[in-house]
């Protein structure tokens, strides 16, 4: 806190919000963490869940779907198309309808 107080005083003196600082050395050496993967989250069961798992979970958790507002079929279709065209998801034309059916049934409105 003392160092912060010194920095604050320097900021007030210079009046610019930027200050030459007390020295803080850049970090050295490694840091390792272990991320929890999907932390136990999974798609709801239902017809087409396998297609959704295969196409969606490669890149992101099921929370990307389950935390969305209750989307319409047209909105879920737009999301699936966006995943294919903007984010390069390898979803074929034939795979789109079963995925959209699943998302609309489990996470959407008709």
């Amino acid at each position, binding site marked *: 806190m003392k160092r912060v107080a010194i920095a604050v005083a320097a*900021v007030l003196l210079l009046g610019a919000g930027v200050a030459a600082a007390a020295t803080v050395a850049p970090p050295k050496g490694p840091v390792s963490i272990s991320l929890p993967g999907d932390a136990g989250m999974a798609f709801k069961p239902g017809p087409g869940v396998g297609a959704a798992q295969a196409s969606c979970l490669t890149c992101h958790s099921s929370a990307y779907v389950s935390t969305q507002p209750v989307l319409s079929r047209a909105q879920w279709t737009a999301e699936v198309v966006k995943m294919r065209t903007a984010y390069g998801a390898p979803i074929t034309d034939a795979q789109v309808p079963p995925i959209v059916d699943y998302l609309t049934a489990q996470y959407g409105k008709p």
Partner: protein
Amino acid sequence: MRKIGRRRFLAGSVAALGASALPARALADSVQLPFANGERPLLAFPQKRPLLVLSPRPPQLETPFAVFDQGVYTPNDAFFVRWHLSNIPQHVDASAHRIAVTGEVNTPLSLSLADLAALPQVEITAVNQCSGNGRGLSAPRVAGGQWDNGAMGNALWTGVRLRDVLDRAGLKATAKQVQFDGLEGPVLPTTPDFRKSLDVDKARGDDILIAYAMNGVPLPLLNGFPVRLIVPGWYSTYWVKMLSAITVLDHVDDNFWMKTAYRIPDTPDNSVMPGATGFPTVPINRMRVRSFATNVVDGAKIDVKLQELRGIAFDGGSGIKRVEVSLDGGTTWRDAALGPDVGKYSFRRWSASLQTRAGQTYTIAVRATANDGATQPATQGWNPSGYLRNVVEMYKVAVG
């Protein structure tokens, strides 16, 4: 999983900050945010305290709002987390890390952190806020990361000026934009890598840093260890984490994350009618002025003995001139007292005396005005991505 309402959870936390003992329910492991599909587990990720999990992969973690009542600086272990792509290094050696500086430069560089230490060191306090902070409150709602208002934080950043690094490399006359890339990568080679760019003049500004410390210590890995870009006053999409490459371009960046994503309508207030299409857009940039109360919660009860209302305000870098509070939903206003000024890019704390009567209900409102004259709107404009939220916040409270 035990479930409790957000209002009760936060009300418990706030009460604990004031007088009463921390209720057991504050240890619950799930929070309900105030919109549909707003249930969020509370989990402690590495180097983090329990935060609201919007997504575990890639990690998107929201700060519990009560944290903002506890001081002007947001603790590193409570600071929000947002990654775009799931291929994130979980082992990073600061001693081996390099930042490549290439493109329209006279002398390409490969800089170690020890090389950065040879440049003048600079500190700056600045708010880092997600472009989509508060997206879950958008009306009508929009698809995207469904944050409440906890995708923001304020920290003291230490590092070197980007300009000093660019000057060492020497910009060619053809330099137009500067592009930033970090170690985060896509799972599939067909997914666009996350890269962001700034105009050369912006990149050479006094306040743009390559930071290697956050609140005086190394950054948590999930906030970008060992170095991240700091763009004070601008939304955090530009604050590239685990910065590993700086490429000077001779053109305006046309990669997906600049040309297609993170765009706002190029209209007078950057809003459009819901459902509108075909309007021009520009890359999102400077943050809008915002303010929040931090010791009351919408929908909660307050104690008649609570005699102080307090909170935070910030803007895109002109600094906060004034904060006003209302107890009648914005019909009448009075000035709050501003706390110490720790920099124009920082949270500014504020407080106001409070007198209430038991049994009454009040709609508390908070409104900030920045030094550049900008203030907060009474109604929120809409845009398709739910960006730029800065409506006057309202807190309906009953006095118990």
